[in-house]
């Protein structure tokens, strides 16, 4: 069985035990409440019985009408309580006790009624009075016995309800005890076996892992059962197998690499030899080349010197040219300044000219209008026969 299942069983058993204990407690509570109720009813019956005795004594001593009425009222209350108790008490013994109590209660009623009747119809003659008193004494004796027996039965009923409560408590304890006796061993055994299984399996795994860790990849951990640990052992074995394969592959690869490295080293050595030879050749070639370079360097130095000379001459010429250029630039700048001044004077002149033109145009328009007006005036004067005032000679 799997460890998970074992643990689940433990949890299920614990839950079941808790539920059962709760159930037992609930039932016990309900039964104790019932027993308490029965105790209350029994207590009420006994209490009412004692109150009834007090009322009876009151009536017998004082012949009190009120006490008589109260006695009958109390009697009815007791009868009702007993009838109610008959429904509440369920055991055969209790019902029998209650039936007996009801019988006693009815006898008490009859005897007390007989006492009341005997008193009420007591005759005046001495013989009758003696007989009546004797009857009353006899009735009172019987009443005492019945009342006593009734109270004893009431006490039995009280004891019975107490017993019911005690039995309920005992049953509760026994129930819980039995539950523990049944479930606790199951829990202990299950926990113990689970613990043993876990410890053994872990120990076996630890040993196996140590062996494998030490490098023995051929070690196989023993697989027992069908729990999580057997699955773990199987997984370990599979992992070891894979490691073994990987290890073998790696070994092969390393060997290959080792061989390749050897070949490489050989090639390197060969290359080294060739390089050395080549270097020698190159060194020799370099010697002749250096000689030629020296020759060429000397030729170049000569050419360089002559070049430097011609350059220096060119530079002198360029300096002269630059001085001449600078003078030209100064002349040019003066010319440009002058040109700008002249341009500004021309601009001012042009503005003045345009202004004069506009004035002239306005004056000409005014003059022409004036001439037209004068002509109109002259025409009008001519039409009126007057002399034209304005001479228009220019026409």
């Amino acid at each position: 069985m799997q460890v998970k299942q074992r643990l689940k069983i433990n949890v299920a058993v614990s839950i079941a035990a808790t539920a059962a204990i709760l159930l037992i407690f609930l039932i016990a509570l309900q039964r104790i409440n019932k027993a308490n109720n029965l105790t209350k009813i029994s207590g009420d019956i006994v209490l009412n019985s004692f109150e009834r005795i007090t009322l009876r004594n009151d009536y017998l001593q004082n012949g009190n009408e009120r006490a008589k009425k109260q006695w009958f009222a109390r009697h009815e209350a007791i009868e009702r309580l007993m009838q109610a108790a008959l429904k509440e008490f369920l055991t055969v013994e209790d019902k029998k006790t209650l039936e007996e109590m009801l019988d006693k209660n009815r006898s008490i009623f009859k005897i007390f009624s007989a006492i009341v009747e005997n008193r009420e119809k007591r005759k005046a003659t001495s013989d009758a009075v003696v007989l009546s008193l004797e009857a009353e004494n006899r009735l009172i004796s019987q009443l005492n016995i019945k009342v006593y027996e009734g109270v004893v039965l009431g006490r039995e009923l009280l004891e019975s309800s107490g017993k019911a409560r005690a039995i309920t408590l005992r049953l509760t304890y026994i129930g819980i005890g039995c539950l523990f006796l049944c479930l606790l061993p199951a829990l202990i055994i299950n926990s113990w076996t689970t613990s043993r299984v876990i410890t053994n399996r872990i120990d076996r795994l630890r040993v196996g892992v140590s062996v494998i860790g030490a490098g023995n990849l051929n070690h196989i951990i023993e697989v027992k059962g069908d729990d999580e640990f057997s699955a773990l052992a199987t997984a370990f074995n599979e992992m070891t197998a894979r490691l073994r394969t990987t290890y073998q592959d790696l070994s092969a690869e390393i060997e290959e690499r080792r061989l390749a490295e050897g070949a490489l080293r050989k090639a390197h050595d060969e290359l080294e030899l060739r390089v050395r030879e080549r270097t020698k050749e190159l060194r020799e070639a370099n010697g002749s080349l250096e000689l030629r370079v020296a020759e060429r360097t000397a030729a170049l130095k000569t050419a360089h010197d002559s070049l430097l000379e011609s350059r220096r001459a060119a530079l002198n010429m360029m300096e002269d040219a630059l001085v001449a250029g600078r003078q030209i630039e100064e002349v040019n700048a003066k010319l440009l300044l002058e040109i700008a001044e002249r341009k500004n004077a021309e601009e001012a002149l042009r503005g003045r000219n345009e202004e004069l033109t506009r004035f002239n145009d306005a004056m000409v328009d005014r003059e022409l209008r004036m001439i037209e007006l004068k002509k109109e005036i002259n025409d009008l004067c001519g039409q009126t026969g007057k002399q034209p005032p304005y001479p228009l000679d220019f026409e």
Partner: protein
Amino acid sequence: MRRYRNRILFAASALAMVACLYACMRTGPKPGPAEKIVIANLVPPFSVLVDVAQLQGYYGPEGLSATMRKYQYGKVALDALLEGKADFAAVAGTPIMLAIMKGEKIAVIASIQTSNKNCAIIARKDEGIHTPQDLKGKKIAATFGTFSEFFMDAFLVMHEISQKDMKISNLKPEDMPAALAGGDVDAVSAWVPVLYNIQNKLAGRGITFYDENIYTQSVSIVARQEYIRDNPGKVRKLLRALIKAEQFVGSDPEAAQKSVAEFNGMDPGMLREMWSGNNFRVALDQSLILALEDEARWAIDNKLTASKKIPNYLDHIYLDGLYAVKPEAVRILR
């Protein structure tokens, strides 16, 4: 793990040993030779528990070998006890009360049953008796010194009939049927099963007057005080056997009735009828003293005894025996 296993095994062994020791300690005393007792017993239904204890074999396991001597009624059974013919006797209240008032050194060890229906007045209708008041001036018989006499007196008083107005005579129970049938008396105060025999003999001519409220009959087991003092162990054993009989009667009344009827050669139907009015309980309670005092007052009033004083009946009740066996059944304060 092995260490824990050993511890668990050790604890289990220790528990088993304690359990065995406890079981051994709980076993009762080893039975010795049976002690002999003689019981003056009554015809049913007056001492049913004594019969049942014998029939169910409850005396033997208690270490008693009981011999039964059957008597028709308690007064003669008590006489047998006083004459030394029996160690214990089953007797009703009236003979006990009278014996104590005479100064007999007896003691009640337990009452074993009570009843309100065991006694009645049976009269002849053909003599004009139809109501209790019709008894006035008639001839009535009772067994003197027994509860038959007490019941008759109580019945007459309750119906306002003075003894002066009656012709009262003493008759043994076995003589009652013939006396009533023959017209020697008009009515008798009788108990069961004599009452049923008379009813059968008179057939339709008889009328029976019951009154459950005027008398509670109690049957008790008595022994001489000297005997009790010398044999308290026997008393306890007898009480234990009677308590077992009480439990059997309570749990299986039909089986008890059947065996008692067979043992006494009675009609089971008749026994069943008588049985219903009885309450079988081994007890010592205050009502026993109340009843004895009531009867003692009656005896003094009717000059049935030389003593003018009600004795202290508590001195004639042996409480220790029942208290040792069933303390909750003792309801008398010392």
